[in-house]
């Protein structure tokens, strides 16, 4: 409707939540293009027994001063509090989306291919090698 996507697509996408993605420091299949949840989330409202934490409403890309307190919340897995609100980055719906599957004779050749892709810094949105079992 707004022509934007978050690009965050974990396997559990159909039954997981934004708060859950932050709590578990989630990764998505298209992280090469859009980033993991720690790259996507901008601001978190976090309710703890000692009070509510919210990073200053800042929308700049990064800040050099001090540690990033969002990093303490990311991956806390419910141990420290409850996430009640979060602001995330969105991007325009991509113009093109191409799928493919490449067959390799064996796993060794497949992993050599993966290595060369990484060495050349050619990062498709998603690239995964699976065996046939």
């Amino acid at each position, binding site marked *: 409707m707004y022509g934007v996507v978050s690009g965050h697509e974990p396997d559990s*996408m*159909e039954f997981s939540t934004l708060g859950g993605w932050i709590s578990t420091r989630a990764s998505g299949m298209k992280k090469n293009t859009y980033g993991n949840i720690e790259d996507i989330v901008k601001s978190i409202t976090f309710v703890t027994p000692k009070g509510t934490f919210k990073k200053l409403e800042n929308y700049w890309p990064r800040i050099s001063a001090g540690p990033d307190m969002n990093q303490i919340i990311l991956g806390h897995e419910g141990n420290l509090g409850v996430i009640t609100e979060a602001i995330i980055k969105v991007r325009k719906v991509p113009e093109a989306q191409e799928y493919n*599957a*490449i*067959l*390799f004779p064996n796993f060794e050749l497949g992993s050599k291919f993966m290595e060369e892709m990484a060495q050349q810094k050619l990062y*498709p949105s998603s690239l995964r090698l699976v065996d046939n079992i």
Partner: protein
Amino acid sequence: MKGFKPEEMVAASTLIEGPKDIVDMQMKQLIKISKKYGGMAAGRENGIKGYQLTYMIAYIRDFCL
């Protein structure tokens, strides 16, 4: 399939998103590199199937929990 043993062969599924010309260029480069390692492109439909399987695995995992 010629040169591919079903019990040994593997598949790399890929998805590339972005501006059309960049996506086309990346896919071309990916296929070129894959050929160096005996790779054979199996096409868009098989790539989509690979990703549908991923979402299914999430349900199996949820059931096991």
